[in-house]
Each structure stands twice: as C-alpha cells, then as structure tokens.
C-alpha cells in the first residue's frame, strides 16, 4: 500500500454514503435518529427465529447482497467526492466463510469506480470500521495518500443472530435501551456505509468543501477479558484522551458524544464511567446518546454508520435521540439526548465511540469543517 509522497495534510471527509434500515442516504437516517424513531426495529422474518429468545432487529425490507450494499454506499461517497481515482479502499466486514468472496466482489466494483481495489479487510468486530478510519487518517495525515476510502457492511444473518442470542447479548424484551434502567442487551441492524477521507490540502486544491474534519482519533485495549469490558472504563477513557490530545482539543470543547451504548448492562456502565473520568463534572452538561437505539447494532459496520450519524449531527445541529428510554439508571448519570424539546447548542466537536470483543476501544473526534 505504498505510494508516492503527496503533501501531508489534516484528514477531512469529502464524501459519504450510507444504507441503513431507513433506506439509502443520510437524510432518512438523520431524520430517524433526530426523532428517536422506533420504526427501524421489527420482527425478523428474513430467517427463522422461532428458537431465539429475541426476535427483533433493524432490517432493510428488501436487502441487496452484502457486496452490492457496500458498493452502493461506496458509489454514493465517491460521487459526492468526485471519483477518488487510485485511492485505496479499506473495507470492514465480519469474519466468516464468505468474507473473502464478498471482499473480492467489492474489490471488482471498487475498481470499476476508479479505486485501487481493496487494500485491506478489517475484521475486528465492532471497532473494525473505526480502526479502518483511524488508519485512513494516519495514512492521509502522514502524507502517504491524499485520499483513502473506507467502507463497511453488515447485514443481519442467521448465524451471528443465533450466536448473539445464545450469548445473551440481545435484548430480552426486544428493545434497545442504551443507558436506561431496564436495559437488557442490544439489537442487531443492517448497514452499509462509506466515507472518503482526504487531506485538507488536497480537498482545498480541488476546491472541495469538506463535510467535516476528523480532528482526532484514539485506540486502546482494555487488557481485561475476552469480551467483557473493563468495569472502570479506563480503556475507553484512554482512547478518548488519545483522540483529544491528537486533535489538541480540550474536553470542554466537545459538544456531543455518540456513545457505543449497546444497551448491555455492564458495557453501558463501563462507558459511562469512562466518560465521567474524562469529562468530570462537565459531563452533566454534555449531550450523550447512542444512535444504536434507532438503527441497531451493525457490528463491523457500526462505527462507520455512527460516524455518518455524527457528521450529520454536526452539520444540522439535530442531535440523535437516545431512544428506548424507560428511566434513569442512577449509576449512569449521563445527560442523555431524550425525545422532546431541547436547547442544545450546535456542537463544534463530537466524539463517536466504539468498543468490541477483545477489549478493543476506538474514539473518533469529528469537528465542523
């Protein structure tokens, strides 16, 4: 993945495409998240769930094959950014018996769009796409590439659904209630998304106005457990601090957090503690939500889907609602974005957080262009 050395610049987003349970494009997704819509979740009819404890997910009514879904988002992002000719594609997919086949099909489609094929496939669960974005930023920021494209896709399928159900990771009551009292787990969701990460200097040279800046990014490991989060949230806090330090942004400048917020009792608690550690008393005034409560958990695509939501919130000032809320968990103590009238200031900087199996944590800090 080497290239000639173009001038280094700060990473910005110049193209974006998304497919979610609400359809293609960022507009229906933004409307759903800003309104706290529950319409994305429905009974699963795509495959047999009669033996599962949980039977709901956020699904597209008529999903295309996974590679086609990814290529659709990719085409939208590339069209918005003008064809990023020769740019490498970093792709996030679930690791299973079909990964290579899907990646090969995406590579063929990407080549037709003028990209340099799939440079790398990330399979690191729920941080896969965020890891790819961080690497894209590192490649752009260090001058190795003027533009790098990141794409991801996940369509709910019977194997992963059954495994998550057996592992008691899915919400027993069929509702995704991040940070709420009575939360009992997550719900899966369909998504494909793509972004073009470009050096600000390259975008300026093309006369392109960025959608947003990727001001900072951070990654850490919990060093705690195979899949359970470190209870004190120290790993998440380190990732957030790394992102803030890289950006030279003070915690007080962050105006919104799109939290990982899977709806898991222990994971949400650990994340809340991490935010308390980083933001201290200021956390009480910091709007936080998990947009998973609206679009579901898209696993390997989740971080890119939520990044798209976060970029949209920066642009519109309409913060995603933390849906499924039943009431406060006294140990959480977050200023959650709930449905109803709010007086939030339009954020200039926002964090998008993700955590995964293996104790992996990522933080992406997005700033208005």
């Amino acid at each position: 993945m080497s290239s000639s050395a173009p001038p280094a610049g700060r990473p910005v987003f110049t193209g974006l495409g998304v497919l979610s349970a609400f359809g293609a494009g960022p507009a229906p997704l933004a409307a759903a998240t800003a309104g706290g819509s529950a319409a994305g979740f429905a009974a699963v009819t795509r495959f047999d769930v009669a033996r599962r404890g949980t039977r709901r997910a956020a699904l597209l009514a008529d999903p295309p094959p996974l590679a086609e879904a990814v290529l659709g988002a990719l085409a939208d992002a590339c069209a918005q950014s003008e064809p990023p000719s020769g740019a490498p594609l970093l792709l996030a997919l679930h690791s299973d018996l079909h990964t290579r086949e899907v990646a090969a099909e995406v590579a063929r489609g990407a080549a037709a769009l003028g990209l340099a094929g799939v440079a790398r496939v990330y399979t690191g669960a729920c941080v896969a796409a965020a890891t790819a974005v961080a690497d894209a930023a590192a490649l752009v920021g260090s001058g190795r590439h003027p533009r790098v494209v990141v794409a991801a896709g996940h369509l709910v399928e019977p194997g992963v659904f059954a495994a998550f159900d057996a592992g008691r990771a899915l919400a027993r009551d069929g509702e995704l209630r991040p940070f709420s009292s009575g939360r009992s787990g997550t719900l899966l969701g369909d998504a494909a998304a793509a972004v073009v990460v470009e050096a600000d200097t390259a975008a300026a040279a093309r006369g392109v106005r960025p959608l947003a800046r990727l001001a900072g990014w951070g990654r850490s490991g919990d060093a705690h457990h195979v899949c359970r989060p470190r209870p004190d949230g120290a790993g998440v806090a380190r990732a957030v601090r790394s992102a803030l330090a890289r950006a030279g942004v003070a915690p007080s400048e962050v105006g919104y957090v799109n939290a990982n917020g899977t709806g898991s009792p222990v994971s949400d608690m650990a994340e809340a503690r991490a935010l308390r550690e980083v933001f201290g008393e200021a956390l009480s005034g910091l709007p936080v939500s998990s947009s998973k409560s609206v679009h579901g958990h898209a696993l390997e695509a989740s971080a890119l889907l939520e990044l798209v939501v976060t970029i949209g919130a920066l642009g519109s000032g309409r913060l995603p609602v933390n849906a499924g809320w039943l009431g406060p968990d006294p140990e959480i103590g977050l200023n959650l974005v709930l449905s109803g009238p709010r007086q939030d200031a339009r954020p200039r900087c926002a964090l998008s957080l993700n955590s995964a199996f293996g104790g992996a944590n990522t933080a992406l800090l997005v700033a208005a262009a």
Partner: protein
Amino acid sequence: MNRLRTLATVRWPDGEPPPPLPGFPASTFNPLVAAVAERCLAAHYGEPGPPRRTGLLLASAGGDRATALAIDTAAAGHRMPPLLFFQSNPNAVLGYVAARWQLTGPVVAVSPPEAAAPGEVPSDALELAALLLADGDADHVLVITAEQAEPAAQAGPATQAGPAEAAEATGAADRAAAVLVAAAP
C-alpha cells in the same frame, strides 16, 4: 515505510497441536493464536508483568473457519452453544492475550487477501504494524498470523475432538507465526 525493529519472532511448529484454551471449543484457531502469542511475548518480555503499551494485530487470510462453520451449523440446528458467541470474532482471543499480559495498545484484526508463506507474517500486516507504531498509541505491536488447515473446518460443533485429534484426523496442519516489533530508531 515499514521501518521496524524485530524484538522476537516465533514460528509455531507445523503439526504440533497447541494446548487447549479454556472457553474456546470447536476450533483449533484460537488455541493456536494464543499459543504462538504466548511464546513470542515470553521470548521478549519473559513473564507477564505491569501494563505495557503493546498493540495486538491478528492477520489471517482464512480466519477461524471452524468456528464460522460451527456457528452456521448450529444456527441451522436446534441449539447454539453459548460459548460460540464468545469466539464469534477473531478479536476475542486477542482479549485473552491482552488480559494475561496486560497489553493496553490497539486491538486489530485483518484478513489479508493471501496467506503468508509458512513461518512468515503477511507483509501488509507488518506495514500496518508500522503505521500503528507511527500513529503513537502503541510502543510495540505483536503481529500474529494463523491459518487453519482447510479440512479442520469440517470439524463442526458436534465434533467433540480436541485440536490434536482434529489435526490428526484430517492429516492437515494448522500454522501460525508471531513477531513482536517496535519502531526502528
């Protein structure tokens, strides 16, 4: 790029079954990753100690096919063993390694298009390790590659055989290697 200093390198002996890894049934993949990581980390660090800013990067072209097959088979059958959830992603075993050795750097899993030659790690994985080191969230990166022998993937969830029996039954050999790297001065 790819200016790296090698701190330790280990090749898992072809055909030598790794010790069973509690909590990771139905596949040789995770025990193999854990075993080769253990040997490589021990070669440089000696024993697990205080937290280290070491990242973990697993590169496998084939991935954990036995677990993937076990999950698909179980989903089509009557019962999904709960433990398959915990190993449904290659990151999971990295969490085991990180917890045992207190490694707090980034945790990354990738699937290169082609497996590396036996005893080597994919060149793209080394390039990614260099990028991670240059990016600043890790002082060292342990790069692990593991490829499961194709026939072992036929050992579905109903198979109670351990990794040794699976390898013996198929006559195929899993293979793995690991290298611990730092940025070159």
